[in-house]
């Protein structure tokens, strides 16, 4: 189990309660489930990394618990009760301190809570209004949190001052008939290297807000399609954004002017979650059509497609290289170093076994490459 979970570079949560790990280099998908009996109560609603080294995953489940899954060992290690299922499902999950002991959760009814490891009562509680669809934590400042939902505009909170939001977004101006524009924030993301926040709405709009400017209305507004946008993700470059809607259309929008750069084809069902890779120009999407698809951001082609038998709710990418080809060069360097060190380090056989395995894989890849070069 531990071996399988260490191979996986993409993690997905499904509606049947199964955590799925996919290893693209080995082209395999593994199911991890904490109970023998599957049940719809265990539906996974939110996924996030438990620590910066990405050895632990936190899953937010419909029955109000947060489970920890260790990627090293391949089993579920902890369960924490964080709220009642009557208040709604988790709409956001994040970690405050580095080791995963302080959790930040947000439920549909709007309560954002900070949980410490020892107590079962929340340390801080923020009321973010009703119908909160999404809560995200700023990657730069762990105390900053943004929430948004149906008829509930974007609000930025500081966890040390839970009474009043730091920034409340104003609704758009009334339209040409003087009617109030409806408002439905579906997904939020923080733009790296700046204070700006991007949101996508159920009325097929993408807004960029800048809390540092005095303007509370969106700085940039872009529209895409005619169907509600359900998911949003920012690639590492920071000038573009990938959005997905309920009909399975995914597009790459440019944030400088708000124009559509291009669409990604292939999805047949509504997009539930999107994530861009931290360093490679890839985006992973999952949705109601039970497939995980990985598209390349540069030429918008489909690179991988994996059938996973249940509807998928959330996706998480690890920051290491997704494919085996990325491991090739580093494997070769390890091989050269190991040849010298192996003769001397003969006592610690067990430690060297793991490296020998990687060395073996590296060797095989080298041999394959040499063969290919030979035939060319």
């Amino acid at each position, binding site marked *: 189990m531990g071996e399988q979970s260490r191979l996986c570079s993409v993690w997905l949560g499904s*509606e*049947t309660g*199964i955590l799925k790990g996919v290893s693209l280099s080995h082209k395999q998908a593994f*199911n991890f489930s904490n109970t023998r009996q*599957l*049940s*719809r109560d265990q539906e996974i609603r939110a996924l996030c990394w438990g620590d910066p080294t990405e050895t632990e995953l936190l899953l937010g489940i419909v029955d109000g618990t947060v489970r920890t899954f260790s990627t090293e060992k391949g089993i579920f290690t902890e369960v924490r009760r964080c709220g009642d299922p009557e208040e709604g499902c988790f709409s956001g999950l994040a970690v405050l301190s580095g080791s995963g002991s302080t959790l930040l959760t947000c439920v549909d009814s709007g309560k954002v809570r900070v949980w410490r490891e020892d107590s079962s009562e929340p340390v801080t509680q923020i009321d973010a209004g009703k119908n909160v669809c999404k809560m995200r934590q700023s990657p730069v400042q762990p105390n900053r949190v943004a929430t948004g939902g149906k008829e509930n505009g974007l609000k930025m909170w500081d966890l040390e001052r839970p009474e009043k939001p730091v920034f409340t977004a104003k609704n758009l101006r009334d339209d040409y008939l003087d009617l109030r524009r409806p408002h439905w924030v579906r997904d939020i993301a923080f733009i790296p290297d700046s204070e700006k926040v991007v949101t996508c709405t*159920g009325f097929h709009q993408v807004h960029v807000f800048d809390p540092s400017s005095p303007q509370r209305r969106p700085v940039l507004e872009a529209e895409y399609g005619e*169907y*509600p946008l*359900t998911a949003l993700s920012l690639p590492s470059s920071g000038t573009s954004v990938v959005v997905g809607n*309920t*009909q*399975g259309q995914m597009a790459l929008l440019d944030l400088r002017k708000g124009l559509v750069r291009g669409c990604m*084809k*292939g999805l*047949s*069902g*509504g997009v539930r979650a999107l994530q861009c890779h931290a360093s490679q120009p890839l985006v992973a999407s999952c949705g*109601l*059509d*039970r497939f995980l698809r990985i598209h390349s951001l540069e030429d918008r082609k489909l690179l991988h497609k994996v*059938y996973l*038998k*249940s*509807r998928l709710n959330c996706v998480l990418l690890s920051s290491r290289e997704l494919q085996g080809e990325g491991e090739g060069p580093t494997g070769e360097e390890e091989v050269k170093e190991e040849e010298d060190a192996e003769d001397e380090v003969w006592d610690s056989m067990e430690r060297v076994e793991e490296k020998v395995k990687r060395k073996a894989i590296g060797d095989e890849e080298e041999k394959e490459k040499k063969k290919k070069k030979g035939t060319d």
Partner: protein
Amino acid sequence: PKHTPPGTTFPPTFSVSEIKNKQRRHQMFMKLKQEKRKQKMQLKKKRRKEREALGDKAPPKEVPKTIENQRVFDETTVDPEDEEIAFDEGTDEFSAYFNGLTNPKVLITTSDRPRGRVVKFCEQLATVIPNAHVYYRRGLALKRIIPQCIARDFTYLIVINQDRQTPNGLVLCHLPDGPTAHFKVSSVRLQKELKRRGKAPTEHSPEVILNNFSTRLGHTIGRLFAALFPQNPQFVGRQVATFHNQRDFIFFRFHRYIFKNEKKVGIQELGPRFTLKLRSLQKGTFDSKYGEFEWVLKRHEMDACRRKFQL
């Protein structure tokens, strides 16, 4: 640049299309066809002689390629032993019906102001599906009808859309919170237009045959159709409703059968016949604007390959 290898000269023939005179061109073309057919018959005869000469040692007959044979293997094809899919199907929106807890009750309605064949089609559908009620639409919004239907214990809502007095669309919505399927309807034949048809369908619940729904999406649609009819068919009535899926088109037929002896069956077609093609499957009750779609037909992407089918 590639050169044609020297030494191969093609015999100088007229291309038939270069002759300007229509009659002569036609004659030349007919001659060409006859020549070709002659050669084909000769080849066939030769092959048959060879086969007879070899007798038992003859190679087996080649199976002709059909589009169904050449179908691209779909990875979503359901494996009957898969636990995860079995659990997924066992706990989906139809579990109440398949566990015997609810009886189907169907509401059939049309788009506003139905005219012509649509009215007759609705009435005939109501005779075919037991416990079905036809109601006149009167311009009501579907989103307002749905909560009222749920309050009155309806399990299905069928809306038939019309274009120029013939039905061309069907929205099938499973009521408590179930998926909504939108189909394109074509080739509708009402009871009067069928040849050699039997008498009117009786009140007995028919048996249901679902053919060829192999993929995961196909399974969902198959269950959608199965939940329209009551779980216990009355074999006394000898009626059967068939939903046959071929190349993503679903053919509906309604027959009465009679076993003449153990091996021979006679069938009589009663009831309307129509073909359906799935356009979209939406999770949740009818909400085409804000609902989430589980599957949408994207013609340019999905119909590009002739051998790939979704159901």
